[in-house]
């Protein structure tokens, strides 16, 4: 049997794919940031970045915003996870559905909904004004931190919940039986063990925050932020400066790389292996404690679901141009979509399903290669798979658009959209697909091969069925995130290729909230249908890891 074929060969293919669509465009961005107007080596881009006031200010703001939101998300997420894992509260089961609700609401729409509640003309603002109470200005830092926290804390919540559930209760009992007070036990024993999970999810939150431009554009036009500047440098109607685009993108890549590096370094010193033990029993609370804790958790849930409600009502609300007539209902916005915009829905479905199919096939193959068939190419694959984590959607979009609009490979439009969506979610897809691969014993596969079944058929007949649950989870999560993808596609798409999030973005930009809401509802339905199908019919366990 040839040792290279088929697995070594497939590893090389995967490597080539990643080299072309991940390494090449990203290196191109780094490279171009050192090229000046006349095509020679120059540090002009970085000189401008360091000397013109607003760029450095934007970098500072971005770092501060990233840290503050990561911190607030960690507090909120760990608190909620702790409540759900430890206490028997009335909404326990609803809380488990939270992640879905927050993941499916387009973040732009949620920002806009919160403006309707807390903006200068907002419902709550006017209510408080009528009562004579001042309300802090929602635009700017306050709004940014508030909306981003409520949008991203779910990532921490999920990670912390999984870690808390995996925690062996006997460790805590041991601590307490040795005379340590319950609170001290929490701090000294429980928290350190869930910290790696919280940090890993915190990193995701951090990258999402510094890469986000949709919420920032809606809420804080006056706070200079790197992500918004990067986006604008590319989309400017007066033609951008390519050196500056690349410089801004390079700075944001460096920023995330630094944080990734620090996090890895910290985690490498702390590795806890939890021997599966007893799960902590859930305590039934009574009295004021019950009220306090349940209402705290209840508030977070209500706030998380609020934008979805505003969107749903908004999509049926009468509007004249940008002005909404709350309380008067109509189907006009849906009828309009039916008359004019079915193509947009078609685009979303096409791109997302192609990206999901491509992403899942790739993730399945690569996770198998990485876990079961390690070769000399594996470390390289590992590293290339990390790269998409270091770049925001906008930067990836710019990298792909710049990398493939000229040069040896020219790609535009639809194909590039699919590739952008695929590449963005690849690291997560591989992680999901490999989640239960470690538990599949090699001997099953070896038995099949030794009975004369060729390796590829063994893979399809024996390994693949065992991997199925992980693959299904990867497919659903890839679907959810690609249907909602905005930041990469919005810099790549060409006329006629608008997806639902792009259309929502454009409508919100012209302040047509009611119509944007109708698209938002359709977007949520498109995301939810396969998820429900997966959970109810195929019994896929999402969010288990």
């Amino acid at each position: 049997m040839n040792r290279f074929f088929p697995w070594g060969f497939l590893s090389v293919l995967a490597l080539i794919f990643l080299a072309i669509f991940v390494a090449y465009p990203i290196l191109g961005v780094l490279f171009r940031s050192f090229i000046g107007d006349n095509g020679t080596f120059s540090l002009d881009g970085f000189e401008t970045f360091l000397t013109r006031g607003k760029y450095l200010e934007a970098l500072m703001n971005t770092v501060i915003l990233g840290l503050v939101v990561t911190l607030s998300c960690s507090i909120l997420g760990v608190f909620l996870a702790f409540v759900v894992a430890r206490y028997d509260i009335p909404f326990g089961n609803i809380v488990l559905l939270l992640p879905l609700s927050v993941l499916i609401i387009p973040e732009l729409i949620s920002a806009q909904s919160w403006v309707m509640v807390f903006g200068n003309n907002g419902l709550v603002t006017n209510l408080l004004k009528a009562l004579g109470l001042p309300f802090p200005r929602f635009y700017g830092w306050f709004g940014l931190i508030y909306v981003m926290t409520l949008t991203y804390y779910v990532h921490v919540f999920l990670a912390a919940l999984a870690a808390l559930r995996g925690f062996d209760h006997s460790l805590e009992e041991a601590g307490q039986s040795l005379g340590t007070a319950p609170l001290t036990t929490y701090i000294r024993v429980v928290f350190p063990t869930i910290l790696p999970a919280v940090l890993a999810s915190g990193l995701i939150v951090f990258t999402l925050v510094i890469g986000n431009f949709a919420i920032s554009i809606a809420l804080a036009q006056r706070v200079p932020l790197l992500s918004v500047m990067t986006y604008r440098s590319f989309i400017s109607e007066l033609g951008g400066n390519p050196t500056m685009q690349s410089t801004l993108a390079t700075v944001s890549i460096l920023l995330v790389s630094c944080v990734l590096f620090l996090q890895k370094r910290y985690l490498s010193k702390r590795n806890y292996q939890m021997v599966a033990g007893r799960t902590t029993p859930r305590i039934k609370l009574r009295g004021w404690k019950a009220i306090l804790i349940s209402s705290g958790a209840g508030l977070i849930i209500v706030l998380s679901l609020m934008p979805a409600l505003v969107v749903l009502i908004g999509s049926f609300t009468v509007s004249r141009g940008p002005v909404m007539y709350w309380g008067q209902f109509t189907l006009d916005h849906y009828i309009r979509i039916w008359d004019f915009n079915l193509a947009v829905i078609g685009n979303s479905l096409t791109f997302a399903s192609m990206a999901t199919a491509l992403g899942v096939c790739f993730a399945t193959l690569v996770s198998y290669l990485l876990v079961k068939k390690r070769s000399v190419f594996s470390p390289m694959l590992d590293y290339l798979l990390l790269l998409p984590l270091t770049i925001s959607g906008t930067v990836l979009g710019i990298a792909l658009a710049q990398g493939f609009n000229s040069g040896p490979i020219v790609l535009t439009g639809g194909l590039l959209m699919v590739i952008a969506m695929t590449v963005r979610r690849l690291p997560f897809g591989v992680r999901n697909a490999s989640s239960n691969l470690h538990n599949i014993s090699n001997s099953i596969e070896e038995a099949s091969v030794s009975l004369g079944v060729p390796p590829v058929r063994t893979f399809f007949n024996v390994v693949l069925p065992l991997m199925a649950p992980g693959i299904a989870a990867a497919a659903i999560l890839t679907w959810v995130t690609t249907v909602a993808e905005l930041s990469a596609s919005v810099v790549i798409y060409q006329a006629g290729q608008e997806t639902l999030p792009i259309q929502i973005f454009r409508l919100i930009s012209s302040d047509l909230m009611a119509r944007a809401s109708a698209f938002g509802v359709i977007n949520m339905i498109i995301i939810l249908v396969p998820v429900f199908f997966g959970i109810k019919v195929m019994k896929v366990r999402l969010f288990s890891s």
Partner: protein
Amino acid sequence: MKYSGYAATYTLLTMVLAGAATNAAAGEVNLYTSNSEDAVALVLDAVAEQAPDIKINVIGGGSGSLLRRIEAEQSAPAADLFWSSGFSTLAGFSHLFTAYHSSEVDALLPALQADNAPWTGTNTHVTVIMVNSDVLDGDPPQTWEALMDERWAGQVTMADPANSSSSYAQLYGIYQLYGEEGVRNLADIVELQGSTSGVYKAVAQGEYPLGMTMEYAAQRYIHGGQSDISKIYPADGTFLSPEGMAFIQNGPNPEEAKQVYDLLLSHDVQEQLFDLTFRRPSRADLDDAIANSGLPLMKDLNIIEVDEAEAGEQRDYLLELWADARG
């Protein structure tokens, strides 16, 4: 029975083949447009009525995205017409267009005929001060000069002139009226939005009481019934920011495209488009429609003439001055 079945199949087949053969030839126009769907629907209706043998294929999108697509398709153009974008934006893509002298051009306002350029004015923006009385303290300023008083510092917003062509037109207008000092005064009092739409949204939502924006944008809220919004045409003069459409070089269907081009400039279509969007038409003979809508007539506005070529040449100098004044 059997025979008629064959006949039907045969007829169907010939029809399909004929359709495929003439697909690109007769009766189609590929329209790339940045206009809203309701505006496009209106045009489709007008074409269906007045030129029933023309079928329009619409590709909609942002004007930057569409123009870049036309540029990408330059070797084999798919588009026939582009409708519409600001003159200064079109200028950056003029190598993609061919001039077409429509018979309707003579009916347009002189400033919008664009005689020397390969495009034709379809409508024009007029700069106004948009006011949100709900968050305004005192009486609103009636002139640019009054607006630039330090009393309004931090309460006025405009789009970043470096990013937006209509905002640059505003800056250039202030420069023409009040020179470098005017530019500095403006820089001292305004806060910038990243995009044009950020301005009217911020004022409508009450984030700022005053904004420098386009007439139609403010009018959408007034017409929509948001009673705290009003607009002011500054007494010391206001600025136009014209928009135009263009005929694509070597487009596949030039003859049909010319018909649609004429139709887009026709009296009826321009009137209906104005009623729908409040964008001032380029035609000079629509005063009745404008008066009916409640907007002032063009002749009653104090318009500062702008030499587009000069505005373009001064751009670098002025933006540098602006950046300097903003600190």
